[in-house]
């Protein structure tokens, strides 16, 4: 198995508060890894460390083979990131947004235009290339943001609650995009609050109070916690939480 993310005793403290408490896990190439936890469980902090946005207090983490504490520049080159806030520029056109991120990630000039057309065709948004992003419906924006995040073909893409506020049909379409990307070998690291989405993941970890309390395939987790669905698994685990 080809590991692209590996952490050991990864810890982040803010003063006395331990946001992330010695977590250790590994993610294989092409895997869809669900990163679950209640609000305040520490998922976003953990994810930020993995993206090189925040320095770990202690412990180790390798992303795409690079040390997140020492080689954050290298890490950043090899990942895509979609934040929970909307990450495209509303006052730029669809094509301009794509060209901007392509430029920032150093995609070769001659590859940019064909790739934009290809991506838009795939999304069914070819007609919107010159539309200002703010004029698009939210669901389209989110799909577009995901396509932009993987435009430079990163090894791993980090998605921080990508489907927040999106209707079920668009969420479904969004996950089709995720599967498609994973099929091409892009590793998906995704946080979500929707337990039905957790079922779509290859493996799921559930964070409680800064620790990873469960990590397995959705099927195994259901068995382990004698639950009918992931929702029940999650509630059984989250009940133990001291902070929230």
């Amino acid at each position, binding site marked *: 198995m080809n590991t692209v993310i590996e952490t050991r005793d990864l810890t982040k403290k803010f003063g006395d508060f331990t946001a992330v408490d010695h977590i250790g896990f590994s993610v294989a190439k092409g895997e869809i890894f669900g990163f679950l936890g209640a609000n305040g469980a520490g998922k976003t902090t953990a994810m930020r460390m993995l993206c090189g946005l925040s320095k770990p207090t202690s412990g180790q983490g390798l992303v795409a083979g690079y040390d997140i504490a020492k080689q954050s520049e290298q890490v*950043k080159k090899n990942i895509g990131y979609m934040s929970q806030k909307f990450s495209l520029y509303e*006052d*730029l056109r669809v094509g301009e947004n794509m060209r901007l991120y392509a430029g920032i990630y*150093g995609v070769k000039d001659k590859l940019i235009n064909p790739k934009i057309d290809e991506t838009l065709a795939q999304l069914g948004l070819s007609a919107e290339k010159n539309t200002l992003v703010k004029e698009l419906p939210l669901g389209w924006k989110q799909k577009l943001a995901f396509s932009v995040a993987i435009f430079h073909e990163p090894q791993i893409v980090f998605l921080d609650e990508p489907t927040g506020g999106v209707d079920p049909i668009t969420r479904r379409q969004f996950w089709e995009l995720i599967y498609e990307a994973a099929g091409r070998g892009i590793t998906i690291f995704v946080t979500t609050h929707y337990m039905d989405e957790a079922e779509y993941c290859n493996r799921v970890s559930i964070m409680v109070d800064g620790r990873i309390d469960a990590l397995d395939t959705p099927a195994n987790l259901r068995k382990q916690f004698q639950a009918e669905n992931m929702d029940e698994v999650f509630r059984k685990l989250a009940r133990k939480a001291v902070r929230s």
Partner: protein
Amino acid sequence: MKQFLAFIKKEFHHIFRDVRTIMLIIGIPIAQILIIGFAVSTEVKNVKTAVYDPSNDISTQQIIQRLDASEYFDVVQLLQSPEDIDRLFKEGKIAFAVVFSEHFNENLYHNGGIAGQARNDKDGAAVQLIADASDPNQGLVATSYAANILGDYQQELLGRDRARPVPTMIIPQIQMLYNPEMQSSYNFVPGLMGLVFILICAMMTSIAIVREKETGTMEVLLASPMKPMYIVISKMVPYFIISWFTLILILLMSVFVLHVPIVGNLLWLNIFSLVYIIVALALGLLISTLVNTQVAALLASGMGLMMPFMILSGMIFPIASMPPVLQWVSCIIPARWYIAGVRKIMIEGASVQHIWTEMSVLIGMIVVILGISLKKFKTRLE
């Protein structure tokens, strides 16, 4: 470099797609130049003046001539009786009146003096200055000018006629004449430049950076391989370029609209201004590292920069007449140095070596402010 250019292009899109930004950047300098150049001008010129001169002697003739010859007064009426004054004022035909007492010349040499203010002493050589004070400022200024002319005349008599000395000297109080509001567009243009660049550079950059924090795009940028330093610099570049255009616009307007000449070296004026623009950009960056919302950035640059800049820079109130404490405080206001420098180089035509102090202070400020803000600019979102 390519990512840098892609990013600068994006910043220009932001600016040119937002009508309010454009209005702010282009409209404000133009509006301020016009307002300050014309409306705020406190100079009083060609005041329509009536004279009542019952003595009609050599002294009064000379005084009237001098009043009329000065650019401040136009003697339009010679009155037959002082009763007409009120009517003429109300009809708006005059804005100023001079009333001499009888036997002015005689009294002047024997027992009286010229009074700057009303002085209806029957025995003295009295002159009454009547101004339309419905515009108090203009009234005050005109009165002071007239008093000044009278004073000059009296000084001259004193020097010329030593044999027949004028017994009483009443020097009109003229200090208030040169109150702060007396500044004309000559002095306002440098002040305006000091203010406009703070507005465009500091306010707009801080808002532009903070907006990305607010919308969440900053997080995505920081997660990208783009170096934070580049993010910041590419935010500044468009405003730097736009500020330069604005500088040229202001200079053109001040020469062709306000007729303020550029006496000094144009190249150095530009270089000096660009240094100041960088100070303003650095201030904008500093603000953006301290606040998290656009509103806060607006308030910080509006209240935190604009107010002290207007009040303490010497733009409105002369620094020399401030209490020592404020004079000290004004030293940390970049605009103070910039405005002083621009006055020297643009209005007075001083050469470069005369603004080295100002230049070095501003460059020092760039180093300090950029140092602090780059240190504070969080490369990692904690």
